[in-house]
């Protein structure tokens, strides 16, 4: 196996199908073993990138425009690393979370496998139409996972999510159609020299449709309406997968298009995503501050934290750390949000209540889980030492260097608002509350995986060098 790149797609497809063949609820260890191998492959890919630079792979042996190219640069490698790492820990978590015979677990493993395959394929795709297929793969698998909770609320959330994601990919597909109509190719690489500032108007439409569709999938304000019920209602491992990874996939694609073929067009609308991102930070935080259910609080926090990702777009054209800031935020939020949902899952499992008020007294009973929640909170607030802090530092640095004071102010305000909702939970946890009759004991596997995710999000803040070095491989850096 010379090239790790295509195996990252085939392997999850294979184990996902195998777990489907094994039958409902089976195949957890197969999945975990598969993801572990994927982790190894991703590291091999990262090593290869650092040593030799980007290596495109022509699927079918046909070079574009006839065939489909797969390509990995530093940006893709970072996202792949995040995905496999988080997925591995969440798979272990899910193994402990789902009791045997749990209805929600019946189809978790194959759906999660296809979801991972779709995301890996998305990160590696360099072909606009192939990206459409991967988007659908990710979207439908995610909807299936949300729906597998089985309750009316979850089904409602899944339906809302489904229509949102279909609308988004529909817009994206129309954009692809326009691009193909204009240029006769869908290869990102071949499009690069073709697009400049005075393209036909149809291509402007294509760019707008594709970016808007992807923003809908990334739940950027005001397209966020589908996210809180879907992420707040699903079983904890699913919520964690969706909030940590799936929304990042469409963000990654926005970044790809923005920096790639649509770069000449992007300058004209660069402030729009930042404006929406700012609104997302304020509105999402406000709703998180007001939320009564614990998981809904975490879900609204995702809406807010995704806003940061869009603040980088006005800054990204000039040289500076804006891209690094965005990627650092994506990675650290991915780790922290997975940890937070995992920790919330433990709290709900043990107390039997999904309310912020129900957290009272948890500090005494579930110290490790609370610690995980708090560490994840540190990242979300952007306090040191954490990956979120480095992201915030880089973002403010980039904003100040270009005189974008408003953006710096939004970042600052967002951090303080995050502190309000994070400490709303922590404060409750430290209250001396009489021990409620514990519904279930806390399984150590769940507590430790949540903690490992949170610790990773914090440790990232002590060492960002390798991540940024990897990111700088290829064109994006």
């Amino acid at each position, binding site marked *: *196996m010379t*090239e790790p790149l*295509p*195996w990252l797609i*085939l392997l999850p*497809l*294979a184990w*996902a*199908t195998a777990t*489907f*063949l094994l*039958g*409902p609820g089976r195949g957890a260890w197969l999945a975990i073993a598969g993801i572990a191998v994927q982790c190894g492959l991703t590291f091999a890919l990262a090593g290869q990138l650092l040593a030799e630079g980007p290596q495109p*792979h*022509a*699927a*079918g*042996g*046909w070079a574009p*425009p*006839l*065939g*489909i190219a*797969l390509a990995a640069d530093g940006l893709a490698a970072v996202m792949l690393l995040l995905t496999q790492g988080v997925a591995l820990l969440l798979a272990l978590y899910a193994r402990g979370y789902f009791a045997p015979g749990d209805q929600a677990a*019946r*189809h978790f493993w*194959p*759906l999660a496998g*296809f979801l991972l*395959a*779709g995301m890996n*394929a998305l990160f590696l795709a360099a072909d606009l*139409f*192939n990206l459409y*297929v*991967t988007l*659908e*793969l990710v979207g*439908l*698998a995610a*909807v*299936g996972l949300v*729906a*597998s909770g*089985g309750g009316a609320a979850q*089904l409602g959330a899944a339906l809302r999510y489904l229509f949102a994601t279909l609308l988004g990919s529909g817009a994206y597909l129309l954009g692809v159609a326009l691009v193909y*109509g*204009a*240029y*006769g*190719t869908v290869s990102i690489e071949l499009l690069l020299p073709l697009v400049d500032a005075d393209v*036909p*108007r*149809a291509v*402007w*439409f294509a760019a707008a449709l594709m970016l808007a569709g992807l923003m809908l999938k990334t739940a950027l304000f005001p397209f966020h309406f589908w996210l809180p019920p879907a992420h707040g209602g699903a079983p904890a491992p699913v919520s964690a997968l969706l909030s940590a990874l799936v929304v990042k996939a469409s963000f990654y694609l926005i970044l790809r298009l923005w920096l790639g073929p649509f770069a000449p067009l992007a300058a004209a609308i660069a402030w729009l995503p930042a404006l929406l991102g700012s609104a997302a930070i304020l509105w999402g935080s406000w709703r998180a501050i007001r939320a009564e259910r614990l998981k809904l609080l975490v879900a609204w926090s995702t809406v807010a934290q995704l806003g940061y990702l869009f603040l980088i777009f006005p800054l990204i054209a000039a040289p500076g750390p804006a891209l690094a800031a965005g990627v650092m935020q994506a990675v650290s939020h991915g780790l922290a949000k997975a940890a937070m949902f995992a920790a919330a899952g433990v709290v709900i499992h043990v107390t039997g209540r999904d309310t912020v008020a129900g957290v009272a007294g948890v500090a005494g009973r579930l110290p490790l889980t609370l610690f995980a929640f708090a560490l994840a909170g540190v990242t979300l607030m952007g306090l040191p030492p954490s990956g979120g802090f480095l992201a915030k530092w880089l973002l403010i640095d980039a904003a100040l260097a270009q005189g974008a004071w408003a953006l710096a102010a939004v970042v600052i305000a967002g951090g303080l608002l995050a502190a309000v909702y994070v400490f709303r939970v922590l404060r409750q946890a430290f209250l001396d509350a009489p021990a409620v009759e514990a519904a279930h004991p806390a399984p150590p596997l769940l507590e430790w995986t949540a903690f490992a995710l949170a610790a990773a999000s914090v440790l990232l803040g002590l060492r960002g060098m390798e991540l940024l070095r990897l990111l700088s491989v290829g064109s994006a850096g």
Partner: protein
Amino acid sequence: MKRLAVSLGAALFAALLGAALLELGPPAATLAPLVAGTLAQSGVTHPVTAVLLNFRGYDTLLEIAVLLIALIGLTAVARRGEAPAATAAVEPVLTTLARLAAPLMVLVAVYLLWAGAFRPGGAFQAGAVLAAAAVLLHLTRLLPAWATPGTWLRAGLAGGFLLFLAIAAALLAEGALLKYPPAQAGLLILAIESGLTVSLGLILAGLFLFLSEERR
């Protein structure tokens, strides 16, 4: 208010985009000549099949995964205590017709599969015909609806995809993802299409049969 805004927005969008399309000149380049020029190496003579299973075979691989996901998601939610349907009598003539039509449709499917190599047709169309046959049998009470898939049914549903995947993996170990050796290309494509026809037929039928409430 929202109604008006969305409707107006959609109308405006359609008008402006329509105008933008009219502005576009004749196509600068399409891939049609390139496909025609490379067709000889693809193992099939029908260009659409060549694109679908050779030049852009990787898209097709992922697309089958999409179908499988939909099916899995559907079985995850379908039939948890839906109200059983009232059984209405079926015209005996219809039943007889279905008995006659079903084998015929299987024949058509086999023809479409075989024809796909050199003229319109192929695994998708053949699978659709197979599924249609199953739906017809079901509507005439000859084929019961499906509950949770058993081992064999699961194997049938995923088999075509697994075969595709196995060929992709084998070819990748040899060189590149789904890069057929030109000599074996036709054979490999036929193998993949045969597997896909069976599985697609089952999956497409399953989309209906897992949802249907009419059981015997």
